[in-house]
């Protein structure tokens, strides 16, 4: 079986994330890392491989700037077998439509995949649409937001919390799968894993390697345009009281009444 995991390199959520003057996300000035939510995708891919126990191969694919290769390395350290980093100046500023195009072409070139595993959302854009777009581009079914994943041969069954119901979804490979942070803690790279990763194949591809026209991606041709970004005005400091012998409840009730919540 061939499994491809899509991993994104994102600015650290706990750092001060910013925008560039052209309203694109600052991916250079802020420390980046493999999106935490994609670690769950790598973990599930590795578990499926371990369960299959045959010659299943896991390939991590990342689209992003030079530094984004760190995300691929981390996936290799966790246990992925191969890494692919698609980097090209022309990609900068791509939106989800363009990103899904590059990903689709990279996945195609990586060889026929039985399973393409994504995270539930990127921690910077948080759109949760790339897996669906990728499935559309590859003409595959999508099974998304799985909290429990089971595979048997080419059958996939997942459990997920839908918008209005808890559902069990079934589908046959090949397909695109996305997993949530409920799917099980991601492993830490072991020392052995870190050493082994250095010897694993890691390829760097440009747009021409995967047959994408530079004119179809990037900021200048984005399908959406950000006109303005504004930092949220700091919240004005509120009133804070200490509860002493029930005074807190009264003060809280007064506040809620003054705001007409009662």
């Amino acid at each position: 079986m061939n499994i491809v995991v899509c991993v994104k390199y994102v600015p650290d959520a706990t750092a001060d994330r910013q925008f560039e003057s052209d309203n694109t996300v600052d991916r250079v000035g802020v420390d980046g890392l493999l999106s935490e939510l994609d670690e769950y995708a790598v973990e599930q891919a590795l578990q499926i491989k371990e369960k299959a126990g045959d010659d299943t191969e896991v390939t991590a694919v990342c689209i992003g700037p030079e530094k984004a290769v760190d995300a691929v390395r981390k996936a290799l350290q966790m246990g992925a077998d191969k890494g692919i980093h698609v980097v090209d100046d022309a990609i900068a500023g791509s939106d989800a439509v363009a990103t899904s195009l590059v990903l689709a072409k990279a996945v195609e070139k990586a060889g026929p995949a039985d399973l393409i595993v994504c995270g539930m959302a990127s921690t910077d854009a948080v759109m949760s649409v790339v897996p669906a777009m990728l499935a559309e581009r590859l003409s595959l079914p999508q099974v998304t937001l799985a909290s429990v994943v089971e595979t048997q041969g080419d059958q996939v069954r997942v459990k997920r919390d839908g918008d209005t119901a808890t559902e069990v979804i079934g589908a046959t490979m090949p397909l695109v799968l996305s997993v949530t942070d409920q799917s099980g803690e991601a492993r830490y790279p072991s020392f052995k894993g870190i050493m082994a990763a250095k010897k694993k194949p890691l390829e760097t591809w440009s747009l021409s390697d995967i047959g994408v026209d530079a004119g179809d991606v990037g900021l200048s041709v984005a399908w959406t345009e950000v006109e303005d970004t504004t930092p949220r005005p700091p919240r004005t400091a509120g009133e804070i009281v200490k509860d002493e012998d029930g005074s807190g409840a009264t003060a809280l009730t007064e506040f809620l009444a003054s705001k007409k919540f009662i």
Partner: protein
Amino acid sequence: MSEVLVLIDHVDGAVRKPTYELLTIAKRLGEPSAVFIGSGAQGAEVAEKVKAYGAEKVYVVDDAQIKGYLVAPKAEALQQLAEKTSPAAILIPSTSEGKEVAGRLAIKIGSGLITDAVDVQEGGVTTQSVFAGNYTVQAKVTKGTPIITVKPNSAAPEESAGAGAVEEFSATISDAAKGAQIVASQPRKATGRPELTEAASVVAGGRGTAGNFEPIEGLADALGAAVGASRAAVDSGWIPHTFQIGQTGKTVSPQLYVAAGISGAIQHRAGMQTSKTIVAVNKDEEAPIFELVDFGVVGDLNAVLPAAADEINKRKG
């Protein structure tokens, strides 16, 4: 005026409130046409409801053949409707399914997509809240037919009579779209409380509840609020994941948000920071949640919440 397609958000024909918000927004962009993908037999009933919020047309797509399949068939139906109507925009509720339908549709019709808008102005300029609510972004779709997914509570639903003309639309659904099947489905148990993402008030509990959500529920009921939770409470198994608020849970933007026994981690903030009024009850005066509050009580939630609930219930008489 061009039509604006609005995908109706419903559960077995029961129209959910965000639909009316979307119709209200659609009026700013053109002539609202509601799209009902559901049981054909319910079409007329649904049309009556959406007509009151300005739907001029109601396309009824009978889902008998596609009900058990995820996302792709709905995207195909919308694609065919878009080709027929050349709409000025397509508005879709920002649920997880809605966003995926929008994603597939965007690729199919070659259009740009904006997700999670909290407002849409004339001309299709959207407002989004990003980076855990630390930035607001104004954006626009620049290619194709703007597809915009809109979050709940993004507009106050305005009643206005539309013609509500029902038109059956039979979409041709490919076999390829029927790849992912819903094998089993367990509808969420009704809690008797408001829906989390739609509620005007939310009371949320975290690790500080130590597993006892009674004080949270008591205050929620006194305020007519929905109940929410932090991931720590969910991971501890105290409350199902569907109640989680934050980056990997639900995003809420109510008039009133009460956080009790929640420290205020960045991932939690991501789901509640845009609430209008924020209140916290926490034992630790250094808890980061206090940086966000309009009103905070440093104290034990097990004492403060039940006493406050009592006082509120008394005032209400």
